[in-house]
């Protein structure tokens, strides 16, 4: 469902590729033993290597390599048995070595595919060009002193995966779907936490426009787009900017542009002519990286069930709708929670309760699933009580609210508060008789054709029985008694 933009000269198509930088989950940095913990005091997580002291040498973190391979496998990608670390040379105060160790000609992961889910329920394949490992830079801080800049090297040398897509994305919605899906996969794999606010996942967007089916246009690269929303807004703005230029007879300049989230515009950062010559060459301090097929297979054996597979399984195994399945698999923990609830229970009921009740109240209270006061087993227990007619669905909502507040089990609450459903028809019949006797006018009106009053009688009976009467029994008895004379 490629989105086209209507211009003055007709429709335009957007051609978009993304470069995502994902910080690898690992205790230590790519080439040093320093910690990668987020939020530490400035310059407290800096080894001699990270500070590029004279004579220091990088030593590759093998766990990070495993994480990259794991990610490559999760993206259905080819893992390269030999890859090479190269130096990308440029000067900046937060780049202590004067070069970033990255992979250029020989990345660790080659071509792959990410399936994205579009709002209309269709699925589209986006090609992955490559994934390579590289060092993160430190952080320059310019707002702490009137004439000085500060440098924090805590992030210097942390491992990043740069994941490059093919220019297969055709609009802001697809871009958002791509980013969300990629983040979901990385989180499932446990290779990146995907927190864009903390900067552990960052996106650059390459975009050009063309007449549908026409030759590719000149592209601009947009940097600093740090949320899914920002990606969508930046693409919308940039596409319209380019279309306006082209329709006015102008030409697009190949350049790097910066997204300004405050003004909602992109602005030129540097042109192609000003682009750095990074003078890449193989890092002589590091040997080529070899990953054997045995290593790849042993990593493959540890892969979790990935989102797409899980989604289809939920639809087949539990008979859930595409929508419910998609909501439930959005996070691994959520899917696990659901499967615990659904265990030995009606799966559709379980899905409804997880999605509507549990996620609803957690959202309202701004809580994550991990913080839920109601465990999956507890919610499963509640659903069992509904299924075996111990309580009605309506009472169950009250019980759930109580569970959420107190953390108690459903059965304990039902017991404590005497909420067990009354199914004894004799007891219900007595109350029904009472209600009929107390409301002669309404009974007459009902019998003369005001059918809508039936709800009034149900309400009265339930009220007298504190909602504990079995609704089916109440309906049946009322119908019999009201209509029977």
């Amino acid at each position: 469902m490629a989105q086209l933009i209507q211009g003055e000269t007709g429709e335009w198509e957007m051609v978009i590729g993304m470069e995502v930088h994902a910080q690898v989950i690992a205790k230590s940095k790519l080439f040093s033993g320093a910690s990668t913990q987020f939020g530490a005091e400035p310059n407290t997580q800096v080894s001699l290597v990270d500070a590029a002291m004279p004579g220091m040498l990088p030593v590759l973190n093998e766990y990070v390599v495993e994480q990259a391979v794991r990610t490559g496998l999760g993206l259905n990608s080819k893992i390269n048995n030999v890859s090479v670390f190269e130096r990308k040379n440029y000067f900046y105060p937060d780049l202590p070595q004067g070069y970033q160790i990255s992979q250029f000609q020989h990345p660790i992961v080659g071509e792959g595919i990410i399936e994205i889910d579009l709002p209309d329920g269709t699925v589209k394949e986006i090609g992955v060009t490559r994934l390579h490992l590289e060092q993160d830079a430190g952080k320059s801080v310019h707002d702490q002193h009137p004439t000085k800049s500060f440098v924090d090297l805590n992030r210097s040398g942390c491992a990043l995966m740069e994941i490059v897509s093919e220019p297969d994305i055709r609009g802001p919605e697809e871009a958002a779907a791509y980013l969300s899906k990629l983040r979901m996969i990385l989180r499932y794999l446990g290779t990146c936490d995907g927190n864009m606010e903390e900067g552990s996942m960052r996106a650059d967007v390459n975009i050009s426009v063309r007449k549908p089916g026409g030759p590719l246009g000149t592209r601009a690269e947009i940097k600093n787009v740090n949320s899914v929303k920002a990606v969508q807004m930046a693409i919308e703005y940039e596409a319209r900017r380019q279309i306006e230029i082209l329709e006015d007879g102008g030409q697009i300049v190949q350049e790097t542009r910066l997204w300004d989230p405050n003004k909602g515009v992109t602005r030129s950062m540097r042109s192609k002519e000003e682009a750095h010559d990074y003078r890449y060459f193989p890092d002589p301090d590091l040997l080529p990286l070899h990953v054997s097929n045995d290593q790849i297979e042993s990593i493959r054996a540890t892969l979790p069930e990935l989102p797409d597979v899980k989604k289809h399984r939920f639809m087949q195994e539990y008979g859930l709708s595409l929508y419910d399945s998609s909501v439930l698999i959005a996070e691994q923990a959520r899917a696990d929670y659901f499967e615990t609830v659904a265990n030995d229970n009606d799966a559709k009921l379980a899905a409804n309760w997880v999605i509507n009740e549990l996620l609803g109240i957690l959202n309202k209270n701004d809580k994550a699933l991990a913080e839920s006061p109601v465990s999956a087993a507890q919610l499963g227990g509640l659903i069992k009580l509904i299924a075996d007619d111990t309580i009605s669905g309506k009472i169950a909502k009250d019980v759930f609210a109580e569970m959420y507040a107190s953390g108690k089990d459903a059965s304990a609450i039902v017991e404590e508060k005497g909420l067990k459903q009354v199914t004894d028809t004799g007891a219900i019949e007595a109350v029904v008789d009472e209600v009929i006797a107390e409301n002669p006018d309404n009974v007459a009106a009902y019998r003369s054709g005001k059918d809508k009053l039936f709800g009034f009688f149900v309400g009265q009976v339930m009220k007298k029985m504190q909602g504990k009467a079995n609704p089916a029994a109440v309906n049946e008895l009322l119908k019999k008694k009201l209509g029977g004379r």
Partner: protein
Amino acid sequence: MSDLTHLTIAGALKGLENKDFTAKELTQAHITASEAAKDLNCYVTETYDLALAQAANSDERRAAGNAGALDGIPLAIKDLFCTKGVQTTACSHILEGFVPQYESTVTANLFADGVVMLGKANLDEFAMGSSNTTSYFGNCINPWKTSDGADRTPGGSSGGSASAVAARIAMGATGTDTGGSIRQPASFCGISGIKPTYGRCSRWGTVAFASSLDQAGCFARTVEDNALILRSMAGHDPKDSTSADRPVPDFLSALSGDVKGLKIGIPKEYRVDGMPKDIEALWEQGIEWLKDGGAEIVDVSLPHTKYALPTYYIIAPAEASSNLARYDGVRYGLRAAEHENLNEMYKKTRGEGFGDEIKRRIMIGTYVLSAGYYDAYYIKAQKVRRLISDDFTKAYEQCDVLLAPTAPSSAFVIGENEDDPVKMYLNDVFTVPASMAGLPAMSVPGGLDSQGLPLGLQIIGRAWDEETVFKVARSIERAANFTALPQTLIKKAA
């Protein structure tokens, strides 16, 4: 006690063990000699107090029966090795005042075996040079002179190390060799020096020049002493990914000097036009010595030799241009005093901090790596490097070790060859090929030229076969019986 400075390391170790003298006395003798030879400018940082303290500790260890393999032996340490708490400059203004908070693996290994450090030895700035004249702290002087009395270069880049050992102000020294920086100074100063196989010694904590070529080694006045020092320096280091995970052989057991049955390759491409007759003659003499010792002489060809030097001057500057990017004035070392903005800070700091030769090589290196030139220079050079390496592999199918001159001249007068960088670069013509192939190579003094200056012979071995190199070197050492002393020492004695 001045004769203590004329001992070999092996002899001194015996003397210490026999309690003929203490490590403190041995160290003091070298400090006294160093003070007297200050005009040679061997040390850029003297660490005499530290040396005496280390010597005192050494004496205690020896008394307690815990002496290490080199306990109490005073050495000079090239100022390219980072030494914890002791200024390390690479003889560059940009690192002046830099005091590392860490110890290089090589010096840590030596200290663990009881070595005493007399001082940080002079070198060409960032080890870039063949005459020690690019040092920010002034050139080092060779103790050898001719009748003209002119100051001569000790060679480079490890000039301070070689001069100190030749002048008997250190018993031995560490050096580094990227394209000949140990072998050429050893030849110029009439001492022995070995560059082991690339990967034999850790590069961790050694200021980098060209990472794929840099290799630590040592100087001493005998082959045996070199074996002693190298044994302590070498070994696998997990902190250096290019350091080899293989055991260090017992180099001392290779010192028989028995070359019977060994095949000695004589590379014909090393017979270059215009080679001084004295060097040609010494080479022939070396061949005769080995023949007399029972070795078989084999003519071999290393057809890509003539490309080694130009290729080296692409790869080494390329790596250097990147390795030296970290000296930016941001975190340590020099930062130019006045600057309006970041770019100006970089330009002024690096402009003031680096000497001309460094700037020249950074520019060459930046050029050969830049877009549009990378394939023509850097990639091509890497391919040629492989061919050079293959030449050696093929040659070693016919022989066990190669014999060649170390350098195309003896020590020249300081200031010569300064007008044309290429003339200076030609000093490395015989040493660079082995560096490109990562092979072990050693220079041993063979005799004096007609001016009375020492000349070295170079033995190049198979990768990881320092033992055969030592064996052949020992054989030449015995045959050459090189006992001449630098004129400055004779003058002093007189």
